[in-house]
Each structure stands twice: as structure tokens, then as C-alpha cells.
């Protein structure tokens, strides 16, 4: 049944989709809206999602398209549902700090570089999957990822943000 299958999929991928939104440059609320919009669109075409050779690649492609669209629209132009999602972390300030640290650290990356870092390094998609999502060759994925990571490694300010954010996280645990 579509709905049961969708529910399982949504529950399994929700965290990753929200995190991908944050790493693409959204606030946490925007990232949750983005994940929601992505999954609503996928549910509306669930039979197509099921038929896709690679379901995750299909869903991340929708997410990137929604992200691009959402930058052209205001938040209500998306498909938010009746209630905002619950937040697992009641300490909203921690969430804001993490989001802020992510944005500062990745500020020097282009959209393409951010996307490839998200897909390959963080969402653990294969080179072939990332290539399918981005609509480029696997060679392009490799070269973009290499340049993106090199840029981060050579960016002292970005590294400092990452280190500080992780230290802060460690001290709050």
C-alpha cells in the first residue's frame, strides 16, 4: 500500500532530508519545510518514485529542485502542511547555533560544491547516485567534490568555525 510504504520511507529519510536542507543553506525551519515539500511531492507521484531505478537519487533530485524553487518563492509558496513538524531538540538555541556554524563554515562554497558535499560526504550517496541527482557525469562529481573539500581545507575561517562548533557541541553533551 502506497501510504504505509511512504510513511516508512518518510520516517527513515526525514532526518537526512532536513539536514541536507540546512547544509544547502536553509534555516532549520526552512529545511523542515523543504523536506516536507519534497516528501509531499514524492507522495503525490509515489508510483513514479517506486518505479525509479534509485529511489534515494530521485528524492534528492526533487529536494534540490524544491530548494531552487523555494529561493525564487516565499515560504508559503511551498506545500507546508497544517502543523510545523515537532522538534526533537527542545533547546532551540542549540539548533540555531549548529545551523549558524554550518552556514558560516560553508559560506565560501558555491551551490554546486555544497550540493556535492551534501550528497557524497554527508548523505552517503554513491558517485553514480550523486551524478544522477546532479545531472552530471561521475567524473564531474569527483572533481567537484575534490575541489570543494580542498577549498574547505584551505579556508582557515571555515575550519575554525567547524572546530569551534564541534567543541561547543562536545561541551554541551
Amino acid at each position, binding site marked *: 500500500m502506497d501510504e504505509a510504504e511512504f510513511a516508512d520511507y518518510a*520516517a527513515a529519510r526525514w532526518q*537526512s532530508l532536513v539536514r541536507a536542507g540546512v547544509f544547502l543553506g536553509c534555516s532549520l525551519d526552512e529545511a523542515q519545510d523543504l523536506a516536507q515539500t519534497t516528501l509531499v511531492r514524492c*507522495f503525490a507521484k509515489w508510483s513514479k518514485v517506486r518505479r525509479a531505478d534509485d529511489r534515494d537519487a530521485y528524492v534528492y533530485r526533487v529536494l534540490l529542485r524544491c530548494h531552487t524553487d523555494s529561493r525564487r*518563492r516565499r515560504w508559503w509558496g511551498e*506545500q507546508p502542511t497544517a*502543523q510545523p513538524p515537532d522538534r526533537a531538540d527542545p533547546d532551540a538555541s542549540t539548533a540555531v547555533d*549548529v545551523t549558524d556554524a554550518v552556514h558560516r563554515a560553508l559560506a565560501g562554497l558555491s551551490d554546486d560544491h555544497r550540493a556535492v558535499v551534501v550528497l557524497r560526504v554527508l548523505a552517503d550517496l554513491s558517485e553514480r547516485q550523486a551524478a544522477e541527482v546532479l545531472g552530471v557525469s561521475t567524473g564531474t562529481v569527483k572533481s567537484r567534490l575534490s575541489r570543494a573539500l580542498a577549498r574547505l581545507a584551505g579556508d582557515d575561517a571555515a575550519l575554525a568555525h567547524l*572546530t569551534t562548533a564541534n567543541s561547543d557541541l562536545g561541551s554541551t553533551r
Partner: protein
Amino acid sequence: MTAPHTDPVPDLRRLWDAVPGGHPQVAAMVAAGRRRRRRGRAAVAGLAAAAVVATGGGVWAATTGGRPPGRDAGQVATDPTATTEVTVYYTNDPGADVGGGGFVIPQLVPRVLEVADTGDPAYDALHALLTMPPAQPQLLTGFNGFHDVTDPAAAEATIDVASVTVDEGVITVDLTRDPWIPYVMRDMDLGVSPGLAVQQVVYTAQDALDTDVPVALTFGGEPVRGVWARRFDWPVAADPDVLPAGAAQDAPRVVDLPTSSWQYGNPARLALSGGTLWVDENGCPFFGGAEGPRTYPIWPQGYSATLAPDGRLEVRRADGLLVAVDGDRLTAGGGSATAESRTGCIPADADEVWLVEEELPPRTTR
């Protein structure tokens, strides 16, 4: 001193894991997904109809009096409460005051309406076109609002659709009344021309059936001589000049705007409310912000609103003048309304409802 950092990946991964995603509202997403599916249903039904025509090889009746053939013989019955979205092609009013001494070029104006779903998208769309008055006063339907001076009993008669059939590359729309009325008197001298009225039917039928085949009008199964006093050679193809480029793709949907019986000149309360005008997830306008409490206005009598696919909201007064778009900051006199006053698209759990008791000025004058 901290050792130089050369690999950002471990830190990135720790931050990734630290982002609190919350829990998905699966039920709400399923409900929103269902709404999204329903929006596409009319077009899908039209495609299915076209496919049957293409593969059937012979005559296929899309409808018979609004009932698809064979439905009584065991096909799935339609839920009487079901609704569907159809695109209806109104025309603009060439007599409308557009300000600045301008004039309106008569063209078709598509609007997406939510109507009763009989399971027959062409019938549903044409029935809406011919019998539902446009929500906005500057829009017109060409086939109604006439008097036949030779037949007083038929004063203000309406013409509705009896059936729609698709047969060998022609959409045949059978009407409930002969539109050949040479002695017709329209309510407005500057009413819709017969040619534009026919194009309304052509575009509405083609859109519903997702095809571009021409349209013939019949009455009692026989081709009509024409419309009003103008003869036509049936079938009639769509005239691209009467539709603004891209209009069909950009058709705004009509908002079920909450309105009251208050109108200019009635006693009015003087309390003020307002804020930035937003649109909620169901397309209903409210005052407030992206977060926090929402105040849903109940607008004065005759106000209407449309929501374009790109999210642009337009609210118009009863006289058709634009008073607000999304993102405007508005202040409106009036007073709070009770929960029982909720109407139109206002959700049942609305934080606050505000009865607007002030004729809002045209947007161009603010």
C-alpha cells in the same frame, strides 16, 4: 595550540549528526499529497479520455448528459460530495474601468475553479462556465445574461451543457437551448461577442479533455446555425489570438474568500486590525507572519480573490478594483468575529477572525 586541520570531513559529519531534524508529520504530508494528486485529476481524466478516443478507433461518447456511458452498467459510481478542479475560460469585460483612460482588449481569462465532480471533466468544466457566475465582476460568461425579445417567457434564460461527446476528431457540445437567437438583447451593450463566447467553450472543452481538436455546438443533436445572430461553420478551432501567451499555464485559482454581508454605507465598527497579508497552506489570506498567531479577515460583501500558481494573491473589491496583494501591510477597520462567523476558507482552528467593516481603498491610491 590546536594542530592544523586539514580534513574537514569528520567535523562536517559531526555537525550533520548534530542538526536536530525533528519528526516527520507523515499524516499531514499524506493529506497534502492527496490534495496535490486531486489537483492533477482533471487533467489526468482528460488524458485518459483522449487515450480512449485514440485507441478506440470509433466513436466514443465522453459523456451523455453529464454521465459517462456505461456508468449505470457497473462502472465506479462518483462520490456525490467529491469535487474537482477545472479550468474555465471567462472573458474580460471590455467595458471595465481600468483607470488612466485605458481600455480592455477582449480576451479569454482562465480561472481554476473547484466544482462538483461528476467524473466527466468536460461536462464539469462547461457546466461551470455556463452556469456559475464569475467570482470577479470584471469577468464575463458569454452565453448568459440575455433576453430574447421575441420570447418574453425566455427572459434571462440560461444556456447549459447537455452533453459532451468526442467523435472522430471533433468535440461536440450539445446545449440545453438553441443559441441561435437573432433578436437577442444582452444585458450589456459591450457584452461578449459571439466569437469570443464560442472560444470560451472551445478552450474550456479542450482544456478539460487535454486535446486541441475543434468544437461543434449542437442543440438536440443537430448543429446550431450560430450563436446570437452570427453564423458559424462548425467545428470551430481554438483561436490563439484570444488567449494571452502562457495564460493557460498561469491560470490563477479562485480563492473561497470569506465575505460578510457588510457593504459600504452600513454601520461600521471602528476598531483597527491588520498586519502583513499572507496566504496559508490552503490558499486562505490572513494577517500575521510566517509564525505566530494568524488573524483571518472576513471581507466585505462582493470581495473576491485569486491565487496564481506562483503564489501571488490578489484581493479585489466588489467593483473589481485591486485592493491588496500578498505581502501588503493592511489596516482594516471593523471588529472581532465569533467562532460561528467563520466562513469561506477560514480554517476551523483559526486563532482569530476579523470582520472588515471598511471599504478598502484601491491599491494604486495607497
